[in-house]
């Protein structure tokens, strides 16, 4: 399975935006982790300054997605490049909060507010 099975990605204002797709099941954890690890390696080589993960199409997810985000964060130097999340519904937000990842990643209500905060000087 390729990356597009799990997410779309684009670069906006030097910020990589990863938009997760709606159907993210733990049973595809192996393929998801490989796809997200490859993405992290690609970002590590590129000049991006931050990664924004957009959950607006996701209704719920489990530990495989948490593990994928953790891997992405590690690939990006665990803090050297900022990882932020946006578009979380209440269930997804609770999952991030329970895992305490909201202690290390910023959470924004939607993509627009995240991009404004991450690149405030851009038009």
């Amino acid at each position, binding site marked *: 399975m390729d990356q597009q099975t799990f997410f779309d990605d684009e670069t906006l204002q030097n910020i990589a935006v990863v938009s997760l797709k709606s159907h993210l099941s*733990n049973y595809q954890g*192996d393929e998801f982790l*490989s796809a997200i690890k490859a993405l992290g390696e690609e970002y590590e080589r590129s000049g991006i300054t931050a990664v924004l993960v957009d959950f607006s199409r996701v*209704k*719920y997810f*489990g530990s495989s997605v948490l593990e994928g985000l953790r*891997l992405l964060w590690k690939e990006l130097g665990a803090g050297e490049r900022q990882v932020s999340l946006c578009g979380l519904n209440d269930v997804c937000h609770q999952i991030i909060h329970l895992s*305490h990842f909201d202690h290390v990643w910023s959470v924004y209500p939607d993509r627009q507010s995240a991009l404004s905060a991450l690149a405030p000087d851009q038009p």
Partner: protein
Amino acid sequence: MTTILIVDDSAADRALASGLLQKRSGNKVLFATNGIEALSQIEMHIPDLVVTDLQMPDMNGLELVDAIKANYPLIPVILMTSQGSEEIAVKALRSGAASYVPKKSLARELSETVEMVAASLREDRAHSRLMFHRMTKSDSTFELPNDLSLIPPLVSHLRQMTRYMGVCNDSDRLRVGVAIEEALVNAYYHGNLEVSSVLREQNHNQYHDLARSRMEQSPYRDRKIHVESRLTREHATFVIRDEGPGFNPELVPDPTDQKNLDRPWGRGLLLIRTFMDDLHFNSSGNEVTMIKQRSESINDEEA
């Protein structure tokens, strides 16, 4: 009356599809010229089904299928495919599109395909009317081979049964689904295949490679996952047992401890503990019982 939303940027193709569908009495047709307009239309008036072109500006058919499945999962989507769009059609079908009709065969197949999907939809609705809040008790038992691909349909089935029983609202049903899925995936990897998170911490590729190789070896490949569900209007109980040696849940590190934040441990168990009202393991640790009580605040409309 079946309301059908036709989405196509070509006026000629919209007219052709509409003419074919309106020949059958009882069909009402609405139009949109791209995916974004289609979503606005759906927000104002939910159709019974959507018939969409794949290649459109702004939001293509695949993106539209994704958006409909995420926000309106009960609306079936039928694709109109043209030559060269086969690959995107396969992706759309994987994303949940109900069927497809090649544009060159619209005249012959569109009406029949729409009627077939609409008939299936009517049957589903009749079934839901029978089940929803009329079923008072359901016990079921599953014996699964250790096969990951069976997990999503089982989770979906159990979530649906919880819906029929009216134990909890939409959000809590999602949480129950997450908990069941985590328990089943634990039974698969850690229980039956005996692959440990210690290995995942060292190298996640090796972790999945070991899981794949054990799927070819006895005794791992012969083990099963046993699932029992007992649902009443008051609570839902799910018992999941693997055939591995079991584990001690007390020894799983707390994933919320700051020093464990960077480690791949215990998050599935944390989600299960949080999303279920009661959780306990048998003495050998290869069987977990999860209970969701009916929420006191819930009323039948919410459920």
